[in-house]
């Protein structure tokens, strides 16, 4: 968590989480991963509130991998709040979801998502997608400096 180059995965499905962790582990990025299991937890983590109040002053992750269907606060609402807050309004957010509904995609981008990726069924493909996203956001992407 001290590492500024961390990934925040917001995922309520433990099986998907396992698969994502496995994929990142295979490219040695697993130890830079934090997981929030619902929308509220993700917001608390990022705004350093509630159970994450202790994180005050910590750096933001390099990217948030955000599911849409989440308990408590859903992904689109999380995204909306992130964009509304000056601290996080430039934070890279990639939507990673099972949905391929047009309206989900549309609303994600309308709310300021940086990318929209559908979770593929194929394990190999899924692993590769996750790995590519990890590398892209952690290694390739140059975020704006504030």
């Amino acid at each position, binding site marked *: 968590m001290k590492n500024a180059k961390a990934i925040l995965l917001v995922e309520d*499905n433990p*099986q*998907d989480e*396992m*698969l994502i962790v*496995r994929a990142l582990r295979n490219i040695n990025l697993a130890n830079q991963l934090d997981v929030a299991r619902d929308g509220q937890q993700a917001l608390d983590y990022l705004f350093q509130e509630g159970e994450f109040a202790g994180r005050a002053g910590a750096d933001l992750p390099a990217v948030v991998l955000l599911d*849409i*269907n989440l308990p408590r606060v859903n992904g689109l609402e999380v995204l909306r709040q992130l964009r509304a807050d000056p601290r996080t309004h430039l934070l890279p957010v990639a939507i990673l*979801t*099972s*949905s*391929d*509904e*047009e309206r989900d995609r549309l609303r994600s981008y309308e709310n300021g998502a940086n990318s929209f990726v559908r*979770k593929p*069924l*194929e*394990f*190999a493909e*899924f692993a590769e997608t996750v790995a590519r996203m990890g590398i892209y956001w952690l290694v390739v992407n140059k975020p704006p400096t504030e």
Partner: protein
Amino acid sequence: MNAPAAPIPPSPAAGRTWVVAFAVLTLLLLAAGWWYYRSEAKTIRAHRHEEIAAIGALKAGQIQHWRQERLNDATRMAGGPLVRKAVTEFLREPGGPLRADLLARLQIERTAGGYADALIFAPDGQLLLAAQAIPAPPDPATQRLIAAARASREAVLSDFFRLADGTIQIAAAAAVRDTAGQPLAVAVLSSDATAYLYPLIQSWPSPSRSGETFIVQREGESIIFLNEARHRAGTALVLRQPLTRTEIPAVQAVLGRQGIFEGVDYRGQAVLADLRPVVGSRWFMVAKVDQAEIFAEVRSRTSLIALVVGSLILLAAAVTAAIYRQENAAEVIRLNAYNRSLIEASPDPLVTISVEGKITDVNAATEQVTGRARGELIGTDFSNYFTAPEQARAGYRQVFSEGFVRDYPLAIRHRNGRVTEVLYNASVYKNEQGRVLGVFAAARDITQRKQAETERGQYFKLFTTSNDLMCIADPNGAFLKTNPACTRTLGYSEAELVSQPFVEFIHPEDKQPTLDEMARQQRVGYSLNFENRYRCKDGSYRWLSWRASFIREEGFTYATARDVTELKRAEAALRRAGAYNRSLIEASPDPLVTISSEGKITDVNAALVQATGASREQLVGTDFSDYFTEPDKARAGYRQVFSVGFVRDYPLALRHQDGHVTEVLYNASVYKDEQGQVLGVFAAARDVTARKQAEAAVQRSRDDLNRAQAVAHIGSWRLDVRRNELVWSDENYRIFGVPQGTPLTYEIFLGRVHPEDREYVDQQWKAALAGKPYDIKHRILVENGPVKWVRERAELEFDPTGALWGGIGTTQDITELHRAEEAIRQLNTGLEQRVRERTAELTAANQELESFSYAVSHDLRAPLRAMCGFSQALVEDFGATLQGEARVYLEQIIRASRHMSELVDGLLILSRCTRGELRRDPVDLSALCERIRGELSRAEPGRQVEWQIQPDLVARGDPRMIEVVMNNLLGNAWKYTARQAAPVIRVYAEPADGRPCFCVADNGAGFDMKHTEQLFKPFQRLHRQEEFPGTGIGLATVQRILHRHGGTIHATAAVGQGAIFKFSLPELDTLNPSSL
């Protein structure tokens, strides 16, 4: 004396005509000679053109052929595996046994082809072998040739080149190549140009002093002659001409000109040349001949033509002169004979008298009038032959003294005593010295003229005094002469009558008959009592009755006419009166009859004929009473007339032959002659059948109206507002429940209106009387009955003066209708409520379905991903430790979860396609297909599929849905052609039933058409999973999308022969996307 006019006798002027004719002929001959010379010169030139063109073509062909032979020889010598093998061997071992073989081969090529030498060079130009024992060292031209052959796959030909010994050569070369195509050696065949090619070029196949052929080629900015010229030695490869000298044919040839060219050759001679390229080379063929040679030929023809023309002119001059001379001699003789015959032919007695008064000559007319022969007359006294000899003598003396006499009256006595009165004209005639030789006297016989004058005077009197019209008409149909009776009768002057064709005076109706009569008259020669009308000057018409004779020889018509106008008028008046009476009788619609005192019919009119069906002939003479249903009553009737003098409205019934009966009323009276004697009865019947029928019809329609009103529950009424008199129909009484016949007023009606509506009805009626339309519904009270609803409508009525009379209207009982309307109104209110409820339900259901689909897409996929993912992770991480079957089972789990995932996706697409808004945008179908094609090809790069996508296809619809359609159709085509050796997928537009359709066709597995019905049902598949995997949802989705768009889809297929899916989208067209 009136001499007959003589025709112009031939005169010396004719001589001039002959001179003119000669001059014209000479000019014609000269012109013909010139023209012939021109055409001959043209023919000769054309002939020479053809000749040199033929020679040029022949030579060019031969040279081309010769070149090809050289190239073929070189190709043959260098080509083929045996040569390659031999050269390879030789190169490996230059001193080996193959050296002798190759040398022998070169010798054969040299001698067989007539070559100067046959050689083999290394590719770098070093000489390896030569047929000639002492070959010349390779010169630069040969080196260039070897380099060209090395670079070319085909044999090449060198330019001409001059060897050190002065001979000119040309060589063909081809490379011997190893199997990889690298040159091993170059075979060269060199020819001595002077041996065969130069003679071939130079020889001229027809005898000509100057004819010459040579070849040239371009070198830089000049041309070079490649062979020896005929007219100058040492030109080969030496003579050059700059390209600027365009008058030289060879320069023109190199510059690309072909065909005939007239110019100046290298010697400065004017020449005619044929130019053409030698195909396959840089050479150009020039065949030429000196213009001087052609002109020599033309000149020899010219002198021949000049000779012929000159001879012909001389001949013409001789002939003209001869004819002219002969004509002049004949002329004198002819003139004498002509004068004499004129004298003899004269009908007037002519005579010449000597100074002594003796006759010296006479003509035939004199012989005739005197009855004496010419011999008797000549030498006798002229005066002897007249009744008054003294006067005759005085006459000719007067001639001698005065020189002439004019119209001197005498009377010649014939030998038989007949006297001919004549007038003499005479004059003296003299010899050349002016001495008087005698008198020439001509007499004119005036006997007949005198008699005719007398007769004419009598006829003229008859003509002018006649009361009948008399006239003469000329062949043109105009009056030539009319008599005073004509002008008297018609009122025109004679000048007016003769001024225009007489048909112009004739009544328009009589014009054609008159023309017909004239035609007949000209045929038969006369007309008798032909009548027509002439227009008089005052505009009235007169009837004329004509008698006329047509004199064919003159073409004149002589006619007399009598004015019969009054007669005609009287006749017409009589005829009109009779016809008028009769037509009155016949026109009467009432049967009229006259009956004799015996009761027999004496006359009938057409109406009676019609009423009885018997003809007039049948009726007349039969008993009157026979034609009635009651003969006795009929008899009683006419007897009553005889006794009383008349009957009035006596009813009887006439029986027609066909049985039908006409009821009539008879009115009859007796009629009498001038003496008061009763002749018979005149009876007129009036047919009253129609009246009786009309009465019955009125009664019937009244009944119908009453019945119709009862059925329709519509009563009618009339209100006379001035008298306040209300009249109701039977039905109106029934509706109001008022006893029939009750007297009514407006107030009584108002009293029956429901109290709540009374004021409203009264207002409306008053407004109606002021002109407002009256169409109202209100309630009425019925005694001992329920309240009724009625609809009242009315129109106002006015009397003939335009004053308001009242109104006529209807009352419709609408109680039932009103009740039904009430029920419907209540029903509608309920229905709207139910529709609102159902809409809300449907919206809820739709929303539910939508959230269900959404949940499916998320929640159903997640466990699948887990199943699939962990199975694969298992295989990946623990594959080594898995026993054989465990691995198979895991793969089955993976496969099943994949299939399920596809099913979930398919279902999602299907459900998505049935909801949501439907957009109508233009979709570039061709571009879409190209994109899908790319995706499919990338997914399976190993497959070779031929795609034929028609460009610029544009469909109109929801872009995402159309993408789903094309994804499915093209995906299917791709999938089902997987086992095809040469798969083809086509996308094109095609009209069907007049609407444009899109087609996706493949030549893949296809299907049996009897299963077509299952094709578009969800989860129905026509192939087993292991044959072609799939979900069975795709085509169901496609059909649903097209149906949502209002379109259709049909499939045609056959097992193993592919399938065609043809679909339509309404509003779709094939416009270019750019125009949308």
